[in-house]
């Protein structure tokens, strides 16, 4: 009994001293690394943590921009998708401790968590989709300010409708969604005051079968041009032979004869600015929101593709003129974040 206890003690002792040796080795390597030329550390490591799979349109825009940053700005990029709220903080901390210099989150649902973790890692740059403000020293925000192309899409819809009833199927009543639906309707009403706008919310960000049913219900109510703020709507429009406006990315490929155009969000200007600032060591907490506007290239109207031929030339000219006016700063699309309601 005593023997085996002794034996055990010896083993533990050996293990302890082995750990000491290891520890010393690690310290040595770390010291060497600190002395090594800075070049090895120059490669910025960027991480992104998404609460959904990367197919989610919002997340996809962030992800695409970060992939581009990997190719064009030489950053190392890693991402974690489908991270539930319960794990979000842990994954953030893992990346932050692992030497990542910049971490991007996705949006509102995980915002509080990210703000909290950001306070623990002041030397890591955090960027997060948010309707709130930035927080010094290291928490910057972005948002999808694509109401300008939504307005332009509305102008086209207002011209193309025959029933004078337009529809939108949207996620839920949050500012990011409301201002798009309202801009779409405002654009339509500017060119066609007789237009009535309908809106349905599906109550979640992703439920294509439900969004499709919501669209079918609107089409039954006379809608003949529909704004697919959510996935699932374009398929209903295609099935019923009406026109659709896509959202977030160029989705014409889903239904080339149905999708006219739509607002496109490009996160590249935002990510490019953030990464360059971190690389230059001048990153500060700020609102990157304006990088998502048309003048900065963060928002645009999707190409017309097949509708280049199908849209009346005067409609195309009207939209191009207005697009130019927005880019020149001569026309400002009003931001209206009040709850849209069916008329």
């Amino acid at each position, binding site marked *: 009994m005593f023997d085996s206890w002794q034996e055990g003690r010896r083993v533990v002792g050996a293990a302890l001293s082995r750990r000491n040796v290891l520890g010393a080795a690690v310290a040595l390597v770390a010291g060497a690394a600190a002395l090594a030329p800075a070049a090895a550390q120059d490669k910025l490591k960027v991480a992104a943590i998404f609460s959904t799979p990367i*197919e989610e349109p919002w997340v996809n825009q962030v992800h695409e921009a970060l992939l581009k940053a990997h190719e064009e700005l030489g950053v190392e990029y890693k991402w974690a998708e489908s991270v539930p709220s319960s794990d979000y903080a842990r994954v953030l901390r893992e990346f932050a401790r692992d030497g990542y210099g910049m971490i991007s989150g996705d949006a509102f649902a995980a915002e509080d968590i990210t703000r909290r973790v950001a306070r623990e890692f002041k030397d890591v740059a955090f960027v997060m989709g948010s309707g709130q403000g930035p927080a010094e020293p290291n928490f910057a925000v972005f948002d999808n300010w694509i109401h300008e192309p939504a307005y332009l899409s509305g102008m086209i819809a207002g011209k193309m409708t025959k029933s004078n009833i337009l529809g939108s199927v949207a996620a839920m009543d949050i500012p990011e969604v409301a201002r798009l639906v309202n801009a779409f309707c405002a654009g339509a009403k500017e060119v066609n005051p007789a237009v009535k706008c309908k809106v349905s919310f599906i109550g979640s960000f992703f439920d294509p079968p439900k969004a499709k049913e919501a669209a079918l219900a609107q089409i039954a109510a006379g809608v003949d041009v529909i704004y697919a703020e959510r996935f699932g709507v374009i398929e209903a429009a295609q099935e019923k032979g009406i026109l659709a406006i896509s959202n977030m990315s160029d989705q014409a490929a889903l239904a080339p004869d149905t999708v006219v155009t739509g607002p496109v969000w490009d996160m590249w200007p935002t990510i490019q600015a953030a990464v360059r600032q971190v690389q230059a060591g001048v990153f500060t907490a700020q609102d990157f929101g304006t990088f998502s506007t048309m003048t900065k290239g963060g928002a645009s109207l999707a190409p017309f593709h097949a509708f280049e031929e199908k849209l009346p030339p005067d409609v195309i000219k009207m939209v191009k003129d207005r697009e130019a006016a927005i880019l020149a700063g001569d026309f400002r699309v009003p931001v209206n974040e009040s709850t849209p309601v069916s008329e």
Partner: protein
Amino acid sequence: METLVTLLDVGFFAALVRISTPLLLASLGELLSERSGVLNLGIEGIMLFGAMTGFTVAYFSGSLWLGVLAALLAGALAGLLMAFLAVVLGVSQHVSGIGLTLLATGLSFYVYRLVFGQPASPPNVVPFRPWPVPVLSDLPVVGPILFNQMPLTYLALLAVPAVAFLLYRTPWGLDLRTVGENPRAADAAGVNVWRMRTQALVIGGAMMALGGAYLSISQFNAFTFGVVSGRGWVAVALVVFGLWSPWRCAAGALLFAALEALQLRLQANNVLHVPYQVLLMLPFVMTIVAMAIVSRNARAPAALLVPYRKEER
């Protein structure tokens, strides 16, 4: 009020039948499992797994029916796993069911990522088209509502009398119900309890997966996350709502679908002038209210949640 009535047109009833399809299939699958004495909370994950498998196989084979077959197999396999956990090992049915949902959900996205990589826009298939039943689809009103639907919808509608017949009119059904009520008596009468429960879970799992596949290759044309969105949990509630009877369960699914179809029409037409959140809640609130009234004297199968061990008393 008049506008409200005009909303209840043929389109409304056709939508009701479409929306009820996955709920019918999933809740009947759950009902079979529960009648045998096993609560299968893996349902939400199994539906998603079915949606993924059905879509993936349909995408690569070009055959929607092969997709359906694959979904059935995938669901049956998931049911078999549930049977191993809950019947053979006899672990907590709540825990193993939730575990199965987590596993099947993770696995679905993982396999999807392995197979499809990271497509910029999700790949899609040409989904099922409505299949008008000859002669019957020409009937006024009933024709477009019931007989101009997708093939899987007919399957779901036929599944109701089929499950009722199986349960109440066949020796297999009698054995299954006995196993769910009093497994010891069933065992004494020579019924293999484990085998009956496993069969119920396998068939039930296949039906759940079929409900999921309906969403990805019939109602919609792609597998995306959120394609099931809690419909499995609704199905579990519908079984209680239906007091473990296939007919009442189907009635519950139709009621839920009717309220869902109605609220979407109310949103589009804004006749009630109430906040949209209230309308979105409508199917859920009304189902809970109806459940509270209907299921006052609800009695679950007596052996539900109780694993069966031959040797134990």
